[in-house]
């Protein structure tokens, strides 16, 4: 048996199928996974993400600590409540975790880290915090609900007092604030508008039921995965890990190399990577989106055949050298319920090709390279290939 969130008994009562996720017993789905996906794109859904961990950092040198630990720069946070997405790197530039940090004030930040990495993250943060005398507090007393979809904010605000609800609705994207004992943030992992709410664990079941009563669908990790992939968002452990760096994980935009004198963990390694690429010593790898043109379903670890630069077709390159360096790999793949096509993220050598082939059970199927996101605010963001026969 794994670890359980404060909502575990309620998930069982609601008929969820429970699966292991990073050592946690979590709901995969309550009914139809595709039905839950559509509920979020078209109306609203609620997810239990209490397995993720809120960590409060307090101290005069809290900002200094985060400017050392994070590849993105918390100095970009000027207004209280503003959130920043960042990678936390190891010394070799590999991604230890991706996280969101909220700026409370100059001496207080809240960080939300992934479930599968939370113990390692906490140890890493504490190790660096000690020297700077920053207090690290793991908020195991909080549950975290993600309420997502075009109707999510209005339905959540109605459960709050009139003043708090009005303040919640006034939040700009990627801002959060404390309201009547809840921390309400306009963030999410679905490509839709919505809130992530951190609230006392004892309140979580009551709030969940009230959301259900207001027409917000219970949604499991299955729908969360198809929604985030359509939204073009990485999943830690699939799309990046401690042996891949942000530039080959579609996360270069989160690395703040300015100012040049900010000495964050992993910086020398990243600069060495960029220097080697600039000198033509290494071929950069990149994380791209794929949409399958043939029938089938893209899945993680399938092999991607990339045509050599300037050459005609993927098959030619594949014949010449079946296990060549031109190969890439799918890091996340699924059937997209919104697009009714199969989509994926794949790590491939940099290419000027428009198409690749994917080895699915020995068959080479055609896929087009696209720029994620695939879906945003309920709408397709890419041109769809014709429906495969």
């Amino acid at each position: 048996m794994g670890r359980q969130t404060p909502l575990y008994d309620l998930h069982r009562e609601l008929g969820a199928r429970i699966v292991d996720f990073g050592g946690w017993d979590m709901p995969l789905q309550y009914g139809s996974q595709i039905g839950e996906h559509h509920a979020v794109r078209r109306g609203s859904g609620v997810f239990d993400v209490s397995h993720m961990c809120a960590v409060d950092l307090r101290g005069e040198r809290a900002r200094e600590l985060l400017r050392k630990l994070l590849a993105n720069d918390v100095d970009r946070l000027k207004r209280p409540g503003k959130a920043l997405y960042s990678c936390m790197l190891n010394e070799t530039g590999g991604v230890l975790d991706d996280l969101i940090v909220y700026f409370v004030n100059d001496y207080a930040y809240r960080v939300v880290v992934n479930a599968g990495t939370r113990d390692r993250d906490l140890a890493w943060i504490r190790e660096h915090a000690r020297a700077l005398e920053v207090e690290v507090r793991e908020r195991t007393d909080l549950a975290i609900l993600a309420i997502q979809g075009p109707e999510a904010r209005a339905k959540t605000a109605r459960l709050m007092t009139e003043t708090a609800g009005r303040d919640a609705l006034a939040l700009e994207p990627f801002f959060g604030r404390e309201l009547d004992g809840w921390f309400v943030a306009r963030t999410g992992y679905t490509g839709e508008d919505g809130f992530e709410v951190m609230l006392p664990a004892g309140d979580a079941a009551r709030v969940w039921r009230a959301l259900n009563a207001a027409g917000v669908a219970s949604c499991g990790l299955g729908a969360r995965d198809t929604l985030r992939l359509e939204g073009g968002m990485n999943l830690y452990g699939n799309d990046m890990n401690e042996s891949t760096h942000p530039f080959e994980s579609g996360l270069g935009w989160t690395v703040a190399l300015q100012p040049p004198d900010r000495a964050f963990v992993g910086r020398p390694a990243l600069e060495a990577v960029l220097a080697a690429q600039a000198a033509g010593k290494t071929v950069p790898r990149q994380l791209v989106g794929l949409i399958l043109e043939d029938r089938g379903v893209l899945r993680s670890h399938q092999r991607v055949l990339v045509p050599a630069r300037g050459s005609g077709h993927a098959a030619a390159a594949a014949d010449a050298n079946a296990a060549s360096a031109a190969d890439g790999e799918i890091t996340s793949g699924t059937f997209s319920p919104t697009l009714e096509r199969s989509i994926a993220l794949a790590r491939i050598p940099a290419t000027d090709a428009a198409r690749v082939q994917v080895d699915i059970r020995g068959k080479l199927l055609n896929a087009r390279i696209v720029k994620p996101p695939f879906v945003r605010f309920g709408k397709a963001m890419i041109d769809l290939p014709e429906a495969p026969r």
Partner: protein
Amino acid sequence: MSNVPADLRYTRSHEWIRTLPDGTVEIGITDHAQHALGDLVFVEVPEAGRSLKAGEASAVVESVKAASDVYSPLSGEVTAGNPRLATEPEAVNTDPYGNGWLMRVRPAAASPTEGLMSADDYLKFLETEGG
């Protein structure tokens, strides 16, 4: 509670087998199996003429979350794969014993369903499996 029709035969890997009047058999996956897989989004069925050995992976059913092989319960030659499933894979979820059939096979053996489970045996098997 799973639907297990009395007139079919079953395997431990959750396929069902129906003997048709012309002596060929129709094969699909059980209600229990489709429920465990979740929403199906892609089904690959064998082409007519392919010869199958008992226990051979002969079809693939893919839900949103995973791909699973379907094993041929008997040896024989495929007479048809269900063409409907190319555009309507969800028929396996909604009608696993009817429109959701996967393939029809002309069995090599004279009594092809020998050794397969009856509905009662399959129900008992599901109980012991915790299904």
